[in-house]
């Protein structure tokens, strides 16, 4: 046996680990497949689904082109306002939470506790937050703003933490060599790096918040969500269609713009 073959057999064997993971995954997968039962599938249900889709595809253009406070255009503007303000509130609230849960910034136990808190914040569904805020503000877009704000915190702080943990700290070394204090290092070494990253994350979340407009509808929190839900509940699918068209156009515009801005922020 020459040294090449020897090396062949020296391969570290983590097969046990791999097989265990693979086995667990398979079991989980099979188990989850049991959620699927095909016997509920009915022909007539399909035809209703087809009707729904064709309803969506033949939108009520009148609604789309109405420009009063019940028209899609106005509601979209309101939705933008809700998402914008909500994103800003969420982004601001997420900053301290992100720093407190970044394990390279604060001690481990603090990071862990903050993480738990974030999980709780994330777990409460928008509909429950909606109810909580309606108690504070009454129904309407204001409650929507706060709901969007708080539901954004989870993802925002997670992405913030990633950015914080990927900070380029080499610059701090050179600032030390210039004779900067810790505060100066943070202000000039860290903030500029984080600023554009955070901004880009915020823009991304804004884009998502616009899409979450429909969830907002559930709690009567203004914007396009409520009409969308009402139209759905009363099976006026061509109205749903016109609302969705408005939403799609808006979101595609926002996505294009936000992609541009984000890449500009990150790549310069």
């Amino acid at each position, binding site marked *: 046996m020459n040294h090449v073959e020897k090396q062949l057999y020296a391969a570290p064997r983590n097969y046990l680990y791999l097989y265990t993971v693979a086995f667990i995954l398979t079991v989980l997968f099979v188990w989850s497949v049991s959620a699927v039962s095909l016997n*509920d599938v*009915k022909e*007539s*249900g399909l*035809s*209703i689904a087809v*009707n729904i889709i064709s*309803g969506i595809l033949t939108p009520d253009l009148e609604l789309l082109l109405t420009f009063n406070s*019940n028209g899609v255009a106005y509601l979209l503007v309101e939705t933008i306002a809700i998402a914008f303000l909500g994103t800003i509130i969420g982004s601001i609230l997420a900053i301290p939470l992100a720093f407190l849960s970044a394990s390279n910034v604060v001690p481990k136990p603090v990071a862990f506790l903050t993480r738990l808190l974030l999980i709780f914040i994330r777990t409460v569904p928008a509909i429950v937050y*909606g*109810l909580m805020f*309606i*108690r*504070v*503000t*009454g*129904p*309407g877009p204001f409650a929507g703003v706060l709901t969007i704000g708080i539901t954004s915190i989870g993802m925002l702080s997670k992405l913030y933490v990633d950015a914080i943990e990927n900070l380029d700290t080499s610059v701090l070394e050179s600032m030390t060599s210039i004779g900067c204090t810790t505060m100066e290092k943070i202000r000039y070494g860290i903030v500029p790096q984080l600023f554009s990253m955070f901004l880009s994350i915020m823009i991304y979340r804004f884009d998502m918040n616009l899409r979450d407009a429909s969830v907002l*509808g*559930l*709690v*009567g929190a203004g914007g396009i*969500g*409520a*009409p969308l*839900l*009402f*139209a*759905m*509940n*009363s*099976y*006026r*699918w061509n*109205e749903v269609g016109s609302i969705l068209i408005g939403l799609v156009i808006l979101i595609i515009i926002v996505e294009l713009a936000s992609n541009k801005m984000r890449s500009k922020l990150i790549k310069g």
Partner: protein
Amino acid sequence: GDSEEGSANESDNEAEASDKENSSADSEEDSEEAAGESIDTLSIGFVPSRDPEEIITATEPLKELLKTEMAGLGYDIGEVEITVGTNYEAVGEALSAGSTDVGLIPGGTYVLYDDGAEVLLTSTRAGLSNDSDDPKDWNDNKPTEPVDEQVTYYRSLVIAGPSAKGQELAEKVNNGEELTFEDLNSASWAVMSSSSSAGYIYPALWLQENYDKTITDLENLVQVDSYGSAFARLAAEQVDIVVSYADARRDNEEAWQGEFEREGSIWDETNVVGVTDKIYNDTISVSKNSEIMTDDLKTAIQQAFINIAQTDAGKEVISIYSHEGYQEASSSDYDNERSAQEFLQSLN
């Protein structure tokens, strides 16, 4: 910015209010008008019990009506804000927290949130051509039509659909047989969310009274988001039974043969297999925790709505809820509902 706007509008409205001669306002109270209190905004919450989209547009005139009416009763209201909650809880919570002043909510919701809400009025509506509690009567006298008589209650129906199971149950009922719980349990049911009076609570009571069982004892039970959805599923034969307010079939008559693509009419294809107790109509309730709420204001609101319901314009507005008038109500009117809820919650 809000308060400024409010006060700016106020003067306009005052002018307006004195311009218009109020037909229905009491002339005695007219004299108090000058010394009237002023309220920046009065917010009214509606539940989405009918077609929310229509509620929004149809209730638009209510704002002016209410302002005029309240002005006549000595209250200058800067702005009437109307919101339609997407669910009952939103309106209930807002009312109990005092972030909404007035709520047009069902009795069930009122009872659930009565820690913070006080009922002022019960609506009256046209009765139906059928008011029997025997399901067979409903099937023999189809379709059901509204009549002139005003009532303060409605009923919920257990309706069997066109599926084989549904037809089988309907057959039995129409032959005068009593359905057993096994019969009912063998069918699949669609119910509304658990706080819905007609879509959950009263059917549950019906089961309790007749079979000593409750809804959660049913094996094939699904919850759906709206009555429209329930009937769509009934038409699609995804479920055999839906529970809904008595009028619902009239509301879905068109869709049945349209979007839901059924051959026969809704009256031919569905049958009533159960009729629940009387359900008290929607209430007009006010918040106990609202800052502006005083006893005088409550009386004024009470009076204003009764007056509005007597004008033609007002009738048209409230017809969206199939309200035709209002009667004063008190908390004890809802004791039945209370015990029903207590009972249901005790099952959980």
